[in-house]
């Protein structure tokens, strides 16, 4: 059903020429975007395209109910623009990023702070939000954390053990991925796409491949799309199993923690069986898949998948049976569905608050057009719900893989990629294991990539963690943090 909307609609994984994107003066553009957000639509990407010294804003909206995307742009302007964040919280990080990257000021933005602080001074330097009260003290958990995790700065305002406010300052993992793609695709671009977020290699590489294929007007051969879907589900299985183990480890429940640690290694080895690299590097390329699995390799993969799924079934059973674990998981880090929708959560974090959002279901592309994976949703919005959603996704990904590996499509896996169409825009969404990965590619007149915007699901979800901690005990923070398990390098790019 097509709703009357001033935006141009396009489906996921397709391209349209830059001219077809509707263009309005700045105020009208922002009013239209605000109207769509008011109707409950979701903002997938919102960024600036520099034109000379002026700037043009581009918005990509996801109409989940309508199973379609919508694109719109503003005329070029400079100076400042009225912020959307005042009324729509989900645009707050995008507007801060536009301010930091292009210098245009979002007027009366309630929380205008740098996102990655890449020019000059490092992150976590600015003045943090202070709660005033005699007994308030700050707890600063800095970039270097106690375990083996990525760096991020968490500033808690505590009254004793209770957290009143949490502010998260990231930017430590900033390596300048987007700046490097301009004028691309270069030789190293595809490798950089695979290392935007190491544990979502297949997610980002598939999105990049879809975007370039859309710009080139072709499509990867069916067997390649099948292989990409298989690798994506294997990556989801590995990460969700690792998360269940890590959640058990954070409440010191040793049986599941140790078992899941090993089973995650088994799933990674299955991906390595396909492409030699445990994280699926070197598998997905624009135009198809570099490596293929012959029947003997696929049957071996099918057999080892069976044993791994049985083991994770046993490990998860322990977790759900243990009453001491359940008391720790329930009612910790609670997030209401209304809050989740307002800040635009995606992926398991959103589905754990009861929101039905899954790119494989709402905007199917590639092999997901032919094979359906049911959406795993859980209503409560606390750590228990996020763990249960992960467990449901493990089971459903397992079923999907069994079903697909029993019916292997024929055909070769690699096709050559023609030149990219000039002056055209492509949007590619992929349901990475953390949520919706969104790549938007815009080519210039010479067919080279003029602007390439990557939005990792963590970019939407970090505010969710900050909200979930309000009123919790500070000793529950590691558990809540691990229940979201967001990517720092995906946010920092």
């Amino acid at each position, binding site marked *: 059903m097509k709703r009357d909307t001033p935006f141009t609609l396009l489906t996921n994984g397709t391209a349209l020429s830059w001219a077809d994107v509707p263009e309005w003066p700045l105020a009208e553009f922002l009013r239209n975007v605000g109207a769509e957000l008011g109707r409950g639509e979701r903002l997938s990407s919102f960024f600036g395209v520099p034109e000379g010294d002026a700037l043009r804003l581009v918005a990509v909206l996801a109409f989940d109910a309508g199973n379609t995307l919508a694109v719109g742009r503003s005329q070029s302007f400079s100076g400042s623009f009225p912020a959307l964040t005042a009324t729509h919280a989900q645009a707050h990080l995008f507007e801060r990023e536009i301010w930091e990257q292009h210098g245009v000021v979002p007027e009366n933005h309630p929380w205008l702070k740098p996102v990655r602080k890449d020019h000059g001074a*490092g992150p976590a330097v600015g003045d943090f939000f202070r709660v005033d009260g005699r007994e308030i003290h700050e707890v600063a958990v800095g970039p270097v954390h106690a375990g083996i995790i990525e760096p991020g700065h968490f500033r808690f305002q505590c009254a004793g053990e209770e957290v009143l406010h949490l502010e998260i300052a990231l930017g430590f993992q900033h390596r300048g991925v987007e700046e490097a793609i301009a004028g691309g695709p270069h030789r190293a671009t595809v*490798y950089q796409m695979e290392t935007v977020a190491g544990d979502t290699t297949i997610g980002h590489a598939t999105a990049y491949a879809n975007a370039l294929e859309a710009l080139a007007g072709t499509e990867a051969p069916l067997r390649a799309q099948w292989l990409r879907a298989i690798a994506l589900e294997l990556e989801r299985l590995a990460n969700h199993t690792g998360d269940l183990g890590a959640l058990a480890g954070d409440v010191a429940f040793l049986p599941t923690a140790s078992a899941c640690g090993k089973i995650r290694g088994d799933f990674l080895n299955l991906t390595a069986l396909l492409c*030699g690299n445990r994280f699926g590097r070197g598998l997905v390329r624009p135009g198809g898949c570099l490596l293929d699995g012959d029947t003997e390799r696929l049957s071996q993969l099918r057999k080892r998948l069976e044993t791994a799924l049985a083991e994770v079934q046993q490990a998860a059973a322990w977790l759900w049976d243990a009453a001491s674990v359940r008391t720790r998981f329930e009612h910790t880090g609670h997030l209401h569905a209304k809050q989740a929708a307002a800040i635009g959560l995606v992926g398991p974090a959103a589905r754990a608050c009861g929101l039905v959002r899954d790119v494989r279901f709402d905007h199917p592309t590639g092999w997901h057009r032919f094979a359906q994976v049911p959406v795993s949703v859980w209503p409560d919005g606390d750590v228990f719900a996020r763990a249960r959603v992960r467990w449901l996704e493990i089971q459903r990904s397992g079923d999907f893989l069994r079903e697909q590996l029993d019916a292997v499509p024929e055909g070769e896996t690699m096709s050559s990629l023609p030149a990219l169409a000039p002056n055209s825009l492509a949007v590619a969404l992929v349901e990475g294991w953390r949520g919706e990965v969104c790549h938007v590619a815009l080519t210039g007149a010479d067919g080279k990539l003029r602007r390439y915007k990557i939005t990792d699901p963590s970019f939407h979800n970090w505010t969710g963690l900050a909200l979930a901690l309000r009123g919790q005990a500070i000793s529950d923070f590691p558990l809540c943090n691990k229940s979201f398990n967001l990517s720092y390098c995906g946010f920092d790019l």
Partner: protein
Amino acid sequence: MSVHDTLLNRLKRGCETMAYPKGPAPALPDRHGGALKVEAAKCDASCSACVTVCPTEAIARPAGKPVALDLGRCIFCAECVTVCPTKAITQSNDHRMAVRQREDLVLGDTGKEQVRLAQALDEKLRRLFGRSLKLRQVSAAGCNACEADTNVLGTIGWDLGRFGIQFVASPRHADGLLITGPVSKNMELALKKTYIALPEPRIVIALGACAIAGGPFIGHPQHHNGASGLVPVDLFIPGCPPHPLTILDGLLRLLDRLGESDARR
């Protein structure tokens, strides 16, 4: 989850830790390829196919000298292996790649077809850390894959704890620093402060292509192309990400805990 069926299940499964290094090393995935081998003899001077195809400019052809492949910058994409007409660069399926000096990673000269493996620490440090090495991990940009593979070493299959190697919470308790990622400018201060917080004697391990020379993001102005510019590095473990077996081999080689099974060179 009653006590009964935990114990029962445990007895049934027995110990799942691998025998390595006492027993044989677990096999690398067959398509992994392991370390690269460069035979300068086979490489004819005129062709430079591999130089143009390498994404991180790891291969260079200094005038008059045979091809030089820097394994530290290599992200093991094996493009050069497929494109080389005379098979001068081949994959050796060998997981052992850890070295002590940065220049040992540059292959190509005669006698340097393969990586010169790391010697153990000197007598004093080995006596100190031989059976109890506590490491503090610092992730300084990078893609979190090296952290994931270091974490895997802690699981029951690899069980790093049995060698007395442990990752600790505070640098005060640590003897060594394990750095991953190309050390972004935003993480420079944190890395320096962590290094200062370590009590002497201390060692530094650069894990992965990013920490050695910048990995896939080599040359970006936002980072320092690896840790060697900021802190003295004692052990380089190449790979993107290095296979857990390579990391474990590097650590044990450093502490001379490999026994006679396959200590080479």
